[in-house]
């Protein structure tokens, strides 16, 4: 499973660690880029700030986006992604602890492709990550560039 890259936007290092491990365990060993806050994520995506040298013609296959992020929060990142022509069609999966109806509504309204709640149980969590990886990196057809 070598196709595609994943952008993981998550501030909690424990969650990052668990996710990476789950991905590895399930052989979703694609390139995973981890950004720890909204600002960094946007900079990386659009090749600005600290990541101005990045080749922005190469966009990730999918973005796994947490909502609670420092500096720029998940919703704003999503908005910016959808606002820019380069990333308008980029698949974004919201991966968050919040089950709140309001958050779900906002997520879909702002254009998220999917909304997944992070389970507390590690096995379930692993399984969720595996399925996400399988689906978005392998099964899902990317939008034409």
């Amino acid at each position, binding site marked *: 499973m070598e196709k595609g890259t994943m952008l993981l936007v998550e501030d909690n290092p424990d969650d990052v660690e*668990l996710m990476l491990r789950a991905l590895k365990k399930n052989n979703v060993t694609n390139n995973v880029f981890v950004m720890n806050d909204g600002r960094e994520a946007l900079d990386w995506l659009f090749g600005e700030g600290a990541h101005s040298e990045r080749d922005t013609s190469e966009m990730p296959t999918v973005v796994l986006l947490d909502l609670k992020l420092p500096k720029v929060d998940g919703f704003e990142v999503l908005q910016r992604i959808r606002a820019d022509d380069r990333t308008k069609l980029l698949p974004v999966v919201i991966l968050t602890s919040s089950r709140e109806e309001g958050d779900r509504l906002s997520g879909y309204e702002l254009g998220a492709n999917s909304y997944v709640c992070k389970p507390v149980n590690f096995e379930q969590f692993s399984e969720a990550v595996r399925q996400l990886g399988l689906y978005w990196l392998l099964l899902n057809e990317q939008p034409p560039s």
Partner: protein
Amino acid sequence: MRIGLRFKWVAVVVFLILFVSTAICVVTIRRGTATIREQLNERCVTLTRGMAHNSEYGLFTRNKEVLTSLVRSIMEAPDVSYCAVYDKAGGLLAGDGDIDEGTLKIDIDTSSRFIKRSGPKKGGVLDIVVPVVSKRVTPGSSETSLFPDEEGGSGEAGEELALFQEERVSSKELMGFARVGISEARGLRNIRGLTNDILKVSGLVMILAIMITILCVNRLIKPIQQLSAATQRFAEGGLLPKVNVSRNDEIGILAGSFNKMMNDLRQTTTSIDNLNREIISRQETEKELRKTHDKLKASNTELESFSYSVSHDLRTPLRSMDGFSQILLEDYGEQVDQTGQDYLRRIRAASQNMGELIGDMLQLSRITRAELTREEVDLSGLATEIAGRLSENDREREVDFVIEPGITAHGDKRLLGIALENLLGNAHKFTSKEPDSRIEFGTCTTCKAAYYVRDNGVGFDTEYADKAFGAFQRLHTTKEFPGTGVGLATVKRVISKHGGRIWVEAQVGEGATFYFTLG
């Protein structure tokens, strides 16, 4: 200047009385005077005519003695001042009384009146002169007879003799003149007397009438004045007065109505005051309520954001705990002994348990805060769905769900769904040790409840029935059956919100039946 009612009344009545009295007086006096005068004249003329008639003979025979005795007899009549007979040339033949000796100056003028009367010139003496004419009327003459027919005095046209009629005398027939002077003094005295009497009586009557009027007007006016004064006092802001009038006429009715009006007004004022006071106190209460409402609203909003934090932030560390414990087990499991592995498992279990607790707590608080939106809910349908899901998630078991069809209720679909989920989920859980699990959902018409959920699971001691609904209260250990003890508390909150009741009948080893109503 305001003219009082009494003054007006009295003035009007007095004026009326005066006017009427004066009018009557005047009319009466004039009439009386006229009558007396008339009578006097009549008498005078009659007397003089009689004398003229009787002196015919004397004049004809030129007998002075006859004339003198005639004159004397006439003089005896009352009021006669003087009396005389003249010859046709005007020479005095016989006379008596206060008379000027001299020729009677008479204008023998056929066109003028012959019988004259002299007024006050002669000191109030009526002077009548009647020509003495022989009765013989020349045949063919058209003169009017001086004297009326003896038979009643009606002429050709039935005319009566007027006192001062024009009389023409032909000198041929004239024999002489009879003259009588009648003193008006007595007549005048009579008139004066009459006038005095009338005036006196009139005056007396007037005074009496005026006095009576004043008295009556007073009696009439007094209550009106009272009423007027009372209303004025009231208008100027005084207390509500009462009028003491006990009469049976319109004024009495007016006073009575006035008193009643004042009474009603008093009552209305009192009730208005009361109402005002009540309004003020209600407004105060409203203010307080509003304050409380605002506080509650703020409180709720705080709870809302607290729940959000809880749901999000508390879960994250739990995940770490659970995750890394598991990883430890997986990756370093061989390096840890059984006890260590057991401890790690406990850590995992504890964090998962906490996760569930958080979820249940959140749900419970959300239910308490939620607004009820009532609609027709198909409970049978809901129950069937839930039953399906429970069976799906646990394919190894065979559970017999008996759901009565067509059960509906008027309530909040989401909340009722949660309640049923908990009840059926519990039933499913506590029958897990039964080989033949049977879960029923239906309506009960005979008992007080509307609905029930029955299972033939492990049951519990009815002694703990009340405890079952307490939050975080459990009647079994986690080892026997998992759970946080919030499920039934949640159900109870939902039922209470709908205004209903829930209770349970259970037996150890036989199962439990939960009954509930929905208000």
